[in-house]
């Protein structure tokens, strides 16, 4: 359902959802039918690590980092997509979950460049993951970054195949369908149609794929270039949310500013108009004030 506000009288509302009582890490809690284990954990302040989960998209169920234990279940379950059930007993932190998360991080870390993935270093330490333990000759997805346009860069050496860009470009948001998956097995990779260069594809440069990419594999050129120059410094950046100057839709823009220059534009995921999405003008059309 949409996010038509429910506070006002006479406002259309979604049908009511049944209450569900469950236990998470020993605490009994009440959720709503249809809630996921992850959303309940987050509302309780329990920090379950996720990589492929984006809060504006349907769960991709790809990375398996958010696995938790459900009493009575034979295997661990992905908390991002598993819906709560009455009397469920969930454990988010156990030897089994830690072991599973360590494996996921080691396998991803050994094959993918996670250097720009937020929080991953801390998780490696927390779960004792050692991606180097498979030796130096492991298969990786290392490859040069694709710089084929002036707006954003595709660095698939950092891609964990979470499919979020495919979903955002496809039917969940943009409906441009420029991005898909090519190849099979270890060779499976994100590609634009027939592995074409971006300017030869259907891409409209909205950058809504960048917005959902969890690892920095998709990155605005401004950020990519500044990182390459060693000048990208989040600690010196401010974030200010304002309204896009183009057209009358009213998309909120969060301007990431470093040294009085706009270095990146995003939109808040919880904004009712955009759900984190923008068009090419909103995301890249800021240079007239630089």
């Amino acid at each position, binding site marked *: 359902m949409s996010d038509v506000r429910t*506070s006002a009288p006479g*406002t259309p509302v979604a049908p009511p959802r049944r209450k569900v009582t469950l236990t998470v890490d020993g605490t009994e809690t009440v959720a709503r039918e249809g809630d996921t284990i992850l959303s309940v954990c987050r509302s309780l302040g329990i920090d379950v690590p996720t990589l492929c989960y984006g809060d504006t998209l349907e769960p991709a169920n790809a990375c398996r980092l958010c696995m938790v234990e459900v009493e009575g279940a034979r295997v661990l379950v992905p908390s991002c997509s598993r819906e709560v059930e009455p009397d469920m007993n969930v454990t988010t932190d156990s030897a089994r979950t830690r072991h599973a998360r360590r494996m996921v991080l080691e396998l991803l870390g050994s094959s993918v460049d996670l250097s720009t993935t937020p929080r991953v270093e801390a998780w490696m330490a927390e779960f004792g993951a050692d991606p180097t333990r498979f030796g130096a000759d492991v298969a990786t997805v290392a490859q040069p970054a694709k710089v084929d346009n002036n707006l954003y860069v595709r660095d698939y050496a950092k891609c964990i195949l979470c499919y979020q860009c495919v979903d955002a470009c496809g039917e969940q948001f943009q409906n441009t369908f420029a991005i898909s998956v090519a190849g099979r097995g270890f060779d499976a990779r994100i590609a634009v149609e027939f592995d074409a260069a971006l300017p030869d594809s259907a891409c409209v440069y909205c950058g809504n794929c960048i917005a959902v990419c969890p690892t920095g594999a998709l990155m605005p050129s401004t950020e990519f270039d500044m990182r390459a120059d060693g000048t990208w410094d989040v600690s010196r950046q401010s974030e200010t949310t*304002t309204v896009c100057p183009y057209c*009358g839709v*009213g998309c909120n823009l969060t301007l990431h500013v470093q040294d009085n220059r706009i270095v990146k534009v995003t939109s808040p995921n919880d904004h009712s108009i955009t759900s984190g999405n923008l068009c090419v*003008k909103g995301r890249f059309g800021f240079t007239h004030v630089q």
Partner: protein
Amino acid sequence: MIGLITAFGASGGTSSYAEVENTDVIVLWGSNAREAHPIFFHHVLKALHRGARLYVVDPRRTPTARFADRWIGLNVGTDIALAHAVGREIIASGLHHSEFVANATQGFEEYRACVEPWTLERAEQVTGVPAEAIRELTHAYATAAHAQLGWTLGITEHITGVDNVLALINLSILTGHVGRPYSGVQPLRGQNNVQGGGDMGALPNRLPGFRDVEDTEARARLDRVWGTSIPPRNGMHLTSMFEAMERKELRAVYVVGENPAQSEPNSGHVVPLLEGLDHLVVQDLFLTRTAQLADVVLPASAAWCESEGTVTNSERRVQRVRKAVEPPSGARDDIDIITALAQALGADWPDQTAQQVWDELRSVSPDHFGMTYEHLEAAGGLQWPCPSTDREEVPYLHARLWAAEPADRGRPAPFSSVEWKPPLDALDADFPLRLTTGRRLDSYNTGVQSGAFSTPLDAGETVDMNPDDASAHALAEGDRVRVSSRRGSIEGPVHLDPSLRPGLVFMSIHAPDVLDVNVLVSEASDPRSGVAEFKATAVRVERADPVPSHT
């Protein structure tokens, strides 16, 4: 705005974007939202994935039309003919909402008589839309449980722009598709504060809070707040200002954030008028073409990222704009400039923050009273009307029309028995093609802002033609052509575009320095809105270079 005021007494779109997601039938009329309002179109796409149907009425088979269940490709400037045929078919099929029509509208019998001549067959002849397609559109819209009708400049940039809007609103009140959840009418605004500018009174006939300048009581209220006496007469809209310049009555002009030297029709005529003024002041971010003509240029900060304030979007949502970067040295906030100017003229205006100015507006506009900065912050933007500081109203307007008690329904919504008129700039043997103008995805207006960034989408400005028309003129992709209208001529490369129907030529408005389409466009305008006939110019296309250059 005039159309909505006439019908409903309020100048905003009646629905919210989130409602679009939950509606059953969406009609986008003269709107290429996929390119001009891409994030609004995301809400439309959500609806389509839910199973809603989309009808797109547009002379061009735009990227928006490609998502439609049915594209209704009509001849330019025949919107009223089509709308009337839809209205007639609704009535003839007994699909009008007779209870709503009886309870909440007036002028139905006159309207019925007005649309009676518009049979599907006659409409097909005038609009070029097959009768069967009009019938399908009609039945889809009229039988939907909920329906949204949206429009943009394809409706308003005609000499009958106001009547076009009224003809569409007729359909919404005929079917009861207004004033209810998920049903409504929605004009999509082209600029981030078109709605807000009007709401604040930045129109020649409006006061802050969208009160009428000629409303004595509203004026008296503001006179008390401001300790002044507001002249009891309407000002001039842009088109009448140029007419007054021509008559030498208007001798000094202060332009804030506009580029009329390039955005106005018949631009070859506009520049001498601006040059002939005694005094021209331009306040802008850039030294635009208009600013280059000015006696005084006041450098302004960018309202969206270098200063504080609010803007109002197409769903009546007021949102905060915030300062993120320092403006270049010497550039000042609009409020600063206007206040300093008033002080220099001897007025006793205090220096004020954007919030203080907003609070003053709240004090004179009950519909904005509840929108304190704190409330805006907490709610992430608020839609008007918002009379209370701690509560939001329903997200759609005019629920009153459905009230059980007649006394609660307020003023009935009037049908408008408007007449179809063809575009003023008629086609003839000398000017046999119809030029229409519009936007492209990655650009904006005259390119003052969007010209600063380039995208791989930018294929250069072109004269877009139907391939058959091009063949008839022995033209191939890239050939240089001269496009002439009754006002002037411009030259550019031709682009073959199968999405254009035969007889139709398209150019964007974005690059006046390269391809100044407004040289061609007539300044003829709707007398009520002052909006010019940008969408319907009669032109001729000829080869510009003597030798074919098949590039």
